[in-house]
């Protein structure tokens, strides 16, 4: 495996260029957001202007509330369903998996219009529920596939031993499987959190008018749309505010997230 040093340096050079190109757009808005409106002083004025004018405090809270609720409920539902589909003989299990499989690649566009009509019939448009309930439904396929794959990977002997010890099904799940499911659940939760936090189309359609429940991406879309003529540095600061929680999470969890997003796609 001897390759010339020149080739190694050249390839690393290509990698550096590719990585810089990937980071540059984010770097450009960070740089722009730190520029004072007067042009010279470096500071946080843009952030405070964006924060107050764009109502990003409430938007970030709304995003966090929606995302956390969706993640928790989906993780619980998916663990239950994935457990049954992975280790028990569920009647029609194959058919259930086939239907869920379609849900994995479904464009949300095909559901949004009836969702709007249904949720407005229930009086839920412009409430948190309009974002939470459908996103649980749309997250369930990924969650069930994910947890089923995990539960199937557990050696049959462990389940058998628990059964012989007289554990009920629920006890096996609660006392035997969930304690070792931590990493799988954590990766799933991270992916779901990312998807839910970034979701735009559903927010645009289902909470169009009520600023109090609008999520961060939607608030940013409105803010940058109405303020297009205004100071681009303030818009950039707003974009950084919306991206920041995800970037922080990414710095901490990037290995988990990358592995999850790339290997999860295989299944």
């Amino acid at each position, binding site marked *: 495996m001897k390759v010339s040093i020149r*080739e190694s340096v*050249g*390839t*690393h050079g290509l*990698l550096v260029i*590719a*990585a810089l190109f*990937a*980071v540059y*757009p*984010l770097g*450009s808005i960070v740089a722009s957001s730190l520029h004072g409106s007067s042009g010279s002083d470096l500071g946080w004025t843009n952030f405070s202007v964006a924060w107050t004018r764009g109502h990003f405090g409430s938007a970030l809270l709304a995003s966090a509330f929606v995302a956390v609720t969706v993640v928790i409920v989906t993780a619980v*539902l998916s663990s*239950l*369903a994935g457990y*049954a589909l992975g280790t028990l*003989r*569920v009647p029609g299990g194959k058919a259930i998996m086939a*239907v*869920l499989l379609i*849900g994995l*690649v*479904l*464009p*949300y*566009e*095909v*559901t949004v*219009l*009836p969702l*709007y009509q*249904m949720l407005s019939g229930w009086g839920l448009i412009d409430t948190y529920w309009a974002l939470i309930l459908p996103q*649980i439904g749309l997250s*369930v*396929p990924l969650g069930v596939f994910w947890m089923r794959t995990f539960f199937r990977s557990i050696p*049959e002997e462990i389940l*058998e031993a628990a*059964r012989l010890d007289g554990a009920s*099904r629920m006890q096996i799940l609660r006392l035997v499987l969930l304690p070792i499911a931590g990493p799988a659940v954590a990766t799933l939760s991270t992916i779901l959190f*990312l998807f839910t*936090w970034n979701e*735009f*189309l559903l927010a*645009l359609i289902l909470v169009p008018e009520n600023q109090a429940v609008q999520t*961060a*991406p939607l608030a940013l*879309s409105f803010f*940058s749309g109405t303020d297009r003529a205004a100071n681009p540095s303030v818009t*950039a600061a707003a*974009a950084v505010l*919306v*991206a920041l929680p*995800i*970037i922080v999470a*990414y710095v901490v969890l990037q290995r988990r*997230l*990358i592995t999850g997003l*790339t290997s999860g*796609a*295989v299944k």
Partner: protein
Amino acid sequence: MTVVADRRTVGATPTGRRWRSRLTGLSWSSLLYVAPALVFFAVFVIYPICVTVQTSFYNYDGLTVATPAGLSNYLNVFADPTLRAALGHSLLLLVFYAALPVVIGLILAGAMSRIRIYGLTVFRALLFLPQILASVVVAVAWRGLLASDGPINWVLEHVGLGSIATSWLGNFDTALPSIGLIGTWVEYGLCMVLFLAGIVTIDRSLYEAARLDGAGPVREFFAITLPALRPQISIALILTITFALRNFDLIWNTTRGGPGTSTTVPSLYVYLDAFQNRQLGQASALAVVLTVVILIVVALVQLAVRGRSGEPRTTRTKRSAR
């Protein structure tokens, strides 16, 4: 209960898999575990899809009584010039969103397969960054870069190409390719990370053998790297093509289909027809077509990969490594 007993005896054969099922039996109570997830999926995904399919056969403005429209909404998808143009834009975007990122990813991955890479974790994290950003954030960033006083034009002017500087997203000729470029940026890192993960699993001795046989870098790429990466290429294609065909967020937050109709795509018309033009039947038909196209593409890519994986190949074992 008799049904349960019957199935149990029929299903019981002395293979390992079935043995498990004999112990547990076909368990109707296990449906209770699946039910909560299925209820959410049925109410918020399956039912809406059925309504969309039904609506697509009607003329409906959301207020007055719907009238049957037969297949006219579907015929419109392919006959209406504005919708046809949108489909055409999507096809062009496929080149930028799917083909280019996969090719770029393959070239770089091919180069990387030949050497030991230092700082792989850092490179991976940086390359993957565009994937985790909300599309609205991406749109804001690129609107700044592509603006008439943005850094791209600044560079062009300083290298003497000031004449081609323009408001990239505001110009009829450049808006669509510019959006395509953003898509390439979003996706190429994902492709590279996927391919890098595949390359790690390739047996290094294959490369040694190829080199002993006098294979050059190009030969090596086509003989070893490319065939071994087939599963990763299929995943990359499915993810990028799906992203390209949906693509509402990015367009909505950059051009909203403009200038004129130069960057319209089907998913944009799904939204506009449903919530602004009050043509719910047309919007539904378009959404159904979009979904069917995505399902077909995914199935085709899957088939193309699975259809060939039965061939005896030196790298076949690598598939199980994932």
